[in-house]
């Protein structure tokens, strides 16, 4: 049985794309929620300095904590992206595994 590039590609994309789209949507939702919290806190820090509730040193330290929080949000997004690509590749391979291995007569895709 001959393998057709277009057919294989369509099957692989059909398996991979829903995963990438769903995971991208989940990551966007997470990022929106967490960055909103950070933005609210930064605004709040400014208001607290203006109101004399905290001094500039305290504000600076609190902002530093927010910066670390932002780094952790971005690192999670990086991890989620890696995970999504991993799942998409594996799904794409899995969906054509039988066809490829049967056509070739040996287990190219384990």
């Amino acid at each position, binding site marked *: 049985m001959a393998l057709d590039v277009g057919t294989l590609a369509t099957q692989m994309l059909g398996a991979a794309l829903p995963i990438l789209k769903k995971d991208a949507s989940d990551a966007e939702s997470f990022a929106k929620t967490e960055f909103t919290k950070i933005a609210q806190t930064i605004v709040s820090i400014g208001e607290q300095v203006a109101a004399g509730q905290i001094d500039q040193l305290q504000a600076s330290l609190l902002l530093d*904590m927010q910066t670390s929080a932002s780094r952790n949000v971005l690192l999670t997004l990086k991890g989620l992206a890696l995970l999504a690509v991993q799942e998409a590749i594996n799904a*794409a391979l899995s969906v054509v595994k039988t066809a490829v291995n049967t056509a070739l007569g040996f287990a190219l895709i384990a």
Partner: protein
Amino acid sequence: MKPVKTTSPVLHKQGPLAFAVLVVAILLTSCAVKLIGDYDDTIDKGVTDVQQRAELYLSKLQSTPNTPYDQSFYDDIDARLAVLKSRAVSLPKYPIIVEQLGNLRSQFDTLQKLDKSSARPFPGVAVTDAESAIAVSVESILKLELALKDGAKPSAPGLTKGSK
């Protein structure tokens, strides 16, 4: 080498990201691809435990602003995070969570400076801001850990062996 030509409308429609996935998938055909480490229950529970301890301390500082600075709290948190980070370092494909734990530790170092240098009564608004920053970091780490846990389940479409 003869270039592979395809006229698949799907490839043209979905753009370079989809094509990149296809190319990588074809190149890595021997076994399942692993780009990031597995879920780790110890890190999940350890980070949650650190957050609980922090919440307790900060709640006390919020409700009783004259609570004195407590070095033992910071020593305890620092030790717990150091242990978790050592574990993360030893796990395969875990650099992201190692860095996240480092950032969380850095947040507690900053909180310690704030706590130590602030006169009493400690400003309640600062407690709220600090609590929020730590919560975002903890949620970020847990979000990734839980995604790793879910990712281990074979729930993705097209994963059945009989697919063609």
